[in-house]
């Protein structure tokens, strides 16, 4: 009814402002475009957690017919608004993340060795680049045991987020 429509409009208006803000952080030339390589960062910082594959599909949706390497705000806005309204690509809860680590830690030791982590992250799933791997190692690996105690790691990262 009228009330609900109003409420949705308000929500959409707020989404528009949020999306515009995030977009502008990367709009270096102030001409309502961003480099396509920054789209992932923008989408993720708006609360979404897509896979790389899903990201590629999204980019295809907002790109120009003849890809220019830039994404225009006018194309990005409606797509992103829809994603937020449908609450797509929800972030991963802490306990699910913990279970994922536990799956990889079949022996249930409470940790993964550095080599194991590298193997999984660079050979399975949507593999990390070398840079991504190095960055993760620098924060995750306990230098004395050369392993990642994933429960502590998760706790640390989550606190940092908040």
């Amino acid at each position, binding site marked *: 009814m009228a009330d609900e429509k109003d409420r949705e409009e308000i929500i959409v208006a*707020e989404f528009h*402002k*949020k999306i515009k*803000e*995030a977009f*502008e*952080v*990367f709009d*270096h*030339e*102030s*001409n309502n475009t961003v480099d396509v390589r920054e789209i*992932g*960062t*923008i*989408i*993720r*910082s708006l609360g*979404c*957690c*897509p*896979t*790389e594959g899903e990201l590629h599909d999204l980019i295809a949706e907002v790109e120009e017919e003849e890809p220019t390497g830039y994404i225009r705000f006018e194309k990005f806005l409606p797509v992103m608004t829809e994603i937020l309204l449908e609450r797509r690509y929800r*972030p*991963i809860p802490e306990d*699910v*993340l913990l*279970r*994922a*680590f536990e*799956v*990889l830690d*079949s022996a249930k030791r409470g940790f993964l060795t550095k080599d194991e982590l590298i193997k*999984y*992250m660079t050979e*399975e*799933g*949507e*593999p*990390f680049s070398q840079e*991504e791997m190095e*960055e*993760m190692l*620098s*924060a995750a690996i306990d230098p004395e045991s050369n392993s990642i105690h994933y429960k502590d790691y998760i706790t640390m*990262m989550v606190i*940092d*987020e*908040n």
Partner: protein
Amino acid sequence: MGSGTSTRHHFAFQNAERAFKAAALIQRWYRRYMARLEMRRRCTWSIFQSIEYAGQQDQVKLHDFFSYLMDHFIPSSHNERDFLTRMFTEDRFAQDSEMEKCSDYESIEVPDSYTGPRLSFPLLPDHATALIEAFRLKQQLHARYVLNLLYETKKHLVQLPNINRVSTCYSEEITVCGDLHGQLDDLIFIFYKNGLPSPERSYVFNGDFVDRGKDSVEILMILFAFMLVYPKEFHLNRGNHEDHMVNLRYGFTKEVMNKYKIVSTMRCKTRQKSEKQMEEKGKANRKSSAQEPIPWFLPQSRSLPSSPLRLSSYKAHKTSRSSSIPCGGCLDRRELSRQVRSSVELELERCRQQAGLLVTRQKEEPSCSASEADSEAGELQKPTQEEWRQVVDILWSDPMAQEGCKANTIRGGGCYFGPDVTQQLLQKYNLQFLIRSHECKPEGYEFCHNRKVLTIFSASNYYEVGSNRGAYVKLGPALTPHIVQYQTNKVTNTLTMRQRISRVEESALRALREKLFAHSSDLLSEFKKHDADKVGLITLSDWAAAVESVLHLGLPWRMLRSQLVNSSADNMLEYKSWLKNLAKEQVSHENIQSSLLETLYRNRSNLETIFRIIDSDHSGFISLDEFRQTWKLLSSHMNIDITDDCICDLARSIDFNKDGHIDINEFLEAFRLVEKSCLEGDTSECPQATNAKDSGCNSPGAC
């Protein structure tokens, strides 16, 4: 057989699939985490930059304030007139007495107990290197040598043309460095990594040597020393911080006062005596000359050293020539000004001839002003508005992506210029590209305008430890730029990216919260507008809109919101308690009214600048009367609502010397935030630093 193996395969397959999915999940989560970190890093950068530029706007406004006062303020009493006269007249900077003061170094005795470097002139390369070593060991150069060096430097600078040329012969390299801002570690690192200046190794420093960092004096000593030792190979350009007014606000004046305290206190004692003398002199002057008070605070009139120093902060690189710089009018004797002006004309004429341009002078656009200069040759001592604007344009402007040229409203001075302007300039003077500084860049450098403009910034960790790299650029005979980056802080090496970003972010947020506090009253009224029902609650969306409309910082408030506002139920914010919490965070005096406190915070930088201006003999003290007069001036022009009684109460609540003088530093310290306990470069206090090695000079950051 059949089902056994297939079950095993089935499980194996399931396990592999589960591992695959688990890995994918972790990666997905991690990438989102990194993206948010990146966003936080960008936002933090925006915060620092917008606060810095807002401060610069203030600076320009302050300058306008003084101009306004000069033109309109009618002193209502004898005291006020004297006060103004002291502030505005050139008397205290009269060229004669200035030179006298400088050459007064001879009367200063250096005690035997002094173990620092001793200089003798003419300087030798060894003297210059000895300075670097001494400063690295945290020694301080004796005042006598400082003054001596300044005196010699001034003599040298006075005879330099506005445009200097450096050439790359076959084997030579030129190194261009950007802003240093008093960060001695960066300068030492550059010399360590790139080599000391020498006849085979030319250096150009693109201004902004002082302010903000804590070793501006030392940097100047080193730079001046090398300039005297290698006058042909070592060059200094002027930046917007080579300006007295800017120095008063941004820390250089304060540093000098703190480091050379004895000289200051001596002056305080003689102050009253000289005040009397000034009075006599003042009276005499008033009778004799109708000379207009010369605005000493205009940008081009004062820089260090205080000679008519007009060098370019743009170092246009040359195969043949450099861009012209307007000869801002000289405030000294006519002789000198004519000489300097004509040398500029000659230089420009030569450039034009070499470029095959017509020698007849035409009125061109501001970038070439010699024509204007010579039309006024020998007439005005005072710089014209036009000339002043040109200098401001050169020292304050920034490149932009769009074509055209528009006023730089963010900084409050200079302009934004587009690629077409650059193209025009380069073509007109047959230049290859432009190297400039003035803007901090995360990587220490940035190309723009199709790689025709290079911004080079040499102060690493400028906003905060871990905020950015510094860089310098080397040019060989082919003029291909080769950039070297660094980050000189032992602590940054031991931190993960996450930790580095967190630290910088914390610092930025603290600064931002202080700014918010400083506008509490305005914020409250803005919030109330969104709270028509007077419930005491507003939506978070309204919060963002309100904050932007008050602060005008252009920041992504919704992105920052989670860190500025505690998560509230159903998206509503109790704004009054939020404001109260902001106030609690700041250092405060319970007996001072919070609105007064707020006003102080908002105008702290202006206040400090004005105080230092009043404190003309740099003693660190101003009288209670001057303090009151300052407030009156400020409040009348800047619409600050404070009663005289409040000021008196304020003064009384601060401990000041019973002789009716206020220690400026004491007053300002009372309203500072608690400094973070982990100081830059001081690893002993910093919990995160682990075995930071000292490789002699500094451990350079990873490039």
